């Protein structure tokens, strides 16, 4: 049986690429190592009755083109809005921003009148910035060293767009590309807890602190989400994040894609310098005209391919590519809702994101510990209770608390993550307990995922949730390797379509779509 294309990895990017290719008439096979599809966008029943969005837990960045082209709603995708961000503070106060703009302004003016005004301006500026960056998301990055006139045109296009920006927007754009999130926000705001909570988007999945230059870009990256045309709104998929992957898989199957789960790849077959298929660990061999890898460059090039097939410089660059996982995930099955001292009882403040980010220094200190190889004793956390929006994922009356925890450095200075896992989980509980003391009494089960678990269970090298850091030197034409940012690789007929390619991670799907369109020779 010979395929036109074999896609390695059934995560959302792999499935997206497969679906686009199949819709263009190609015969495509997807092979997934695990028994479930979705990669890091997966729902699993970890404890009976509790279906966790084990890794990735909110959605916003998923490209609207993909939702439209693949008709995902028809395939069962339903996105429920996540309303607002609630930040409890140690002094008994809180900051609670919601999607209702007027309400948020009133709330911010409780902390600072100046900030309430600046918030308006800031929101507008960020929308402008996201608007500027958006077309770049759907673009195959140009190669600045190429002499091909089409590549030069792309660079010219970017230059023109930049020149087309209003003066003030140009300024913001340059700053966003280079500054630290904290410095960037300092220019607008004075309220510490507001700055800290906003700056948090700048460090998610990145081994940098809020004061590290380059984090303003990650902030923007998280601003590029849109749901139903509304920028930067976040939501849950009904049934958990895995439902997104399931919907893409359904669209792919409908287009004729064959999907095999529990089919771990051992190596990519290369014949005469061309990718010719894959060999599974059970010895099965499948041949195809091309192979598309949605897994990260470490696995693709250092594990699945004989190094003799690759140029030495390319291998050096792949080895240089930085992963540096910095986060863990703790999923809790709860008997009741957490009760926050600063805003007791249930209520709409629990329906959105709950952010443990009481101050800029708090965030920075969390990073400082991680720099020297320890997990933060008081980490930054982004938590959601999806059961308040979608009760179907837990038994009646029970809840799920999904905690994204940073910093948890992949490389520990002493000990191993296998020894430290429970201590890490305890730290998370202790941290929550400072704001919601009842947490200790309502936990039914807990699942602790360290960076090592993310690597072992989900194939994310060093536990990096974006398949490689989103730092400036690893973006755009340099993602994953300078000169190889156009989804192709030094091995002919071998392509890349994962988060390690432009424009990077999050449940965006853009790498999968861009890669497929490039293979098909179509414009985005």
């Amino acid at each position, binding site marked *: 049986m010979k395929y036109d294309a074999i896609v390695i990895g059934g995560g959302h990017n792999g499935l997206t690429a497969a679906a686009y290719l199949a819709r263009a008439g190609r015969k495509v096979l997807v092979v997934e190592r695990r028994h479930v599809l979705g990669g890091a966008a997966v729902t699993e029943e970890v404890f009976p009755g509790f279906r966790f969005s084990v890794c990735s837990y909110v959605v916003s960045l998923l490209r609207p083109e993909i939702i439209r082209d693949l008709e995902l709603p028809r395939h069962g995708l339903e996105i429920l809005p996540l309303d607002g961000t609630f930040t409890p503070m140690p002094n008994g106060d809180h900051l609670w921003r919601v999607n209702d703009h007027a309400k948020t302004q009133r709330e911010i003016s409780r902390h600072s009148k100046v900030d309430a005004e600046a918030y308006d301006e800031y929101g507008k500026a960020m929308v402008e910035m996201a608007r500027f960056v958006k077309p770049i998301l759907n673009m195959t990055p140009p190669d*600045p*060293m190429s002499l091909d006139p089409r590549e030069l045109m792309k660079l010219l296009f970017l230059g023109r767009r930049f020149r087309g920006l209003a003066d*003030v927007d140009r300024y913001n754009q*340059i700053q966003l590309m280079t500054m630290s999130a904290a410095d960037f926000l300092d220019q607008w705001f004075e309220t510490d807890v507001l700055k800290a909570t906003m700056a948090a988007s700048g460090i998610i999945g990145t081994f940098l602190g809020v004061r590290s230059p*380059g984090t303003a870009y990650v902030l923007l990256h998280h601003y590029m989400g849109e749901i139903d045309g509304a920028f930067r709104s976040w939501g849950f998929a009904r049934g958990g994040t895995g439902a997104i992957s399931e919907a893409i898989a359904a669209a792919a199957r409908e287009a004729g894609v064959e999907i095999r789960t529990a089919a771990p790849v051992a190596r990519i077959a290369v014949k005469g310098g061309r990718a010719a298929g894959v060999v599974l660990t059970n010895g099965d061999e499948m041949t195809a005209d091309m192979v598309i890898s949605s897994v990260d460059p470490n696995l693709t090039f250092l594990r699945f391919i004989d190094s003799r097939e690759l140029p030495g410089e390319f291998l050096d660059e792949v080895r240089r590519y930085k992963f540096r996982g910095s986060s863990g995930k703790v999923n809790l099955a709860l008997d009741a809702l957490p009760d926050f001292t600063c805003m007791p009882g249930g209520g709409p403040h629990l329906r959105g994101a709950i952010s443990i980010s009481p101050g800029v220094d708090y965030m920075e200190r969390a990073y400082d510990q991680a720099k020297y190889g320890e997990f933060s004793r008081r980490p930054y956390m982004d938590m959601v209770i999806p059961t308040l929006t979608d009760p179907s994922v837990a038994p009646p009356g029970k809840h799920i608390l999904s905690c994204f925890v940073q910093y948890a450095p992949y490389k520990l200075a002493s000990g191993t993550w296998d020894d430290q896992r429970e201590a890490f989980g305890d730290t998370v509980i202790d941290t929550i307990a400072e704001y919601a003391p009842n947490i200790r009494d309502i936990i039914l089960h807990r699942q602790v995922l360290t960076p090592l678990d993310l690597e072992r269970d989900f194939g994310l090298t060093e536990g990096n949730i974006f398949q490689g850091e989103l730092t400036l*030197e690893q973006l755009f034409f340099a993602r994953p390797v*300078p000169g190889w940012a156009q989804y192709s690789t030094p091995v002919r007929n071998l392509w890349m379509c994962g988060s390690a390619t432009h424009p990077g991670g999050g449940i965006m799907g853009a790498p999968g779509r861009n890669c497929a369109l490039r293979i098909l020779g179509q414009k985005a």
Partner: protein
Amino acid sequence: MRDVIVIGGGVNGLVTATLLAKAGLKTLVLERGDRVGGCARTGEIAPGFRCPTLAHAAAIDPSLLRSLGLVRHGLRIVRPAVDACAPTRDGPTLVLWHDAARATEAIRAFSAKDAEQYPRFVNSFARVTAVLRAVCASEPPSIDDPTALDLIEMLKTGRKFRALGRADAYRLLRWMPMAVADLAGEWCESEPLRATIAAGGLLGSFLGPWSAGSAAILLLLGAEEGHPVANGWFIAGGPGALADALAAAARQAGVDIRTGADVARINIRDEEAQGAAGGVTLSNGEEIAARAVVSNADPKRTLLGLLDPIHLAPELVRRARNIRTHGTLAKINYASSSLPEFKGLSALDADGQAAALSGRIRLAAGIDGIERAFDAAKYGGFAEEPWIELTIPSIADPGLAPRGRHVVSTYVQYTPYHLRGTNWDAERDRLADAATRTIAQYAPGFAASVLAREVITPLDLERTYGLTGGHVFHGELALDQWFVTRPLLGWARYGTPIRNLYLCGSGTHPGTGLNGRSGALAARAIIQAIRGSQAR
């Protein structure tokens, strides 16, 4: 009436004034201190001990050296045989000789792999920074209306970039936004070598080795000499001798220099719809008229301190306020009764020790040690073990100290301008003690050998030397404050929103230390503007 007043007689101010005078403009330099030179000065810290007061190295652009005849005016450049030496507390000392073969041998004792890699890194660094040097030597282009000249410059730079070839071209693009610890880590494995290279990306900046963007500083500061460690040379007689040579060149070109002339305000002529600079008022009330005013003071001080903000649009004022000038460097100068004896050099004889210590001496407990010193600064404090770079200029230039004695010039970092819960006047001695203790960990007899010390905190840099926020570069060197955005996007070509008011200091492109490039580029832009308006 004068043609041009230059506010501030720093290195760039003197360069600008000289070039303007050579172009036939009647130029007056007003310096508030009792001598010119700005950051280039030599001071007597104890009878017979003369030490670089602020900067201890310079790297004047070679074409300026020639065109201003600085050597003729008495400048004597000292190039030590050693670029940098990195003593450790308990192990051997890494000595990076300027001679590549010798450096390689020294590195081999630490790591054979590094010995192989270091020359490669140095070579690639030289190629890559040649392109940056070209960028540093040209005026940033206008984004809205690039002139034909801008386009030609961009094409020239573009061609240089392409000529690098793929590997180096990608390196340049990839290196700029990186953390300097990562860059050093990509090439080298031995900790002293990594830390010594990384240190070059941190001087004067509010960044730690793990901060992204610090590699850009290493590249920019290293661009002048095209070397990652040997950025700049020393001057016989200390940096004050550079100021003297620049002043002599200026006077010969016809520049009037007035010291003790403290400019309080830039005067604006309001007869036209948009204000234009028409001279200055000194703090003693004296008014001096001129057709144009050039400020060597930093952009914040110029735009927010010397001008009435009423003349500037509110958005511009906001942006000027947001220029980051959070100084992080203190300077401590020591008079020492003997050459410090570093533990790691005890195997060498006296001459050997002196040679090893003749360049920059970088004291760091590895990259993490530097990072920990930075950590304290983030929270408004300074570390008990600051990160220190020192030079002993009296080794190469014994005239700076009495026979057998020495002066030790130290950069002490990280010392944030904003201290939390205290102030620099209260902390001065505690900082100096911490620095002395730290040096003594590497050179045990040092504390006892100190005869006198001069402590210059970031607050002193601001009060005494006019550097806003105590920032030695007049504004953080960072990717968002460089090239077309230095000091402000839209105002990177030495002009300001006020007609006939120009900037020429380190706060303008390229602003990378004592090289005179900002001053030279400013002079070119000012001459063009003045000629253009005369032609109309």
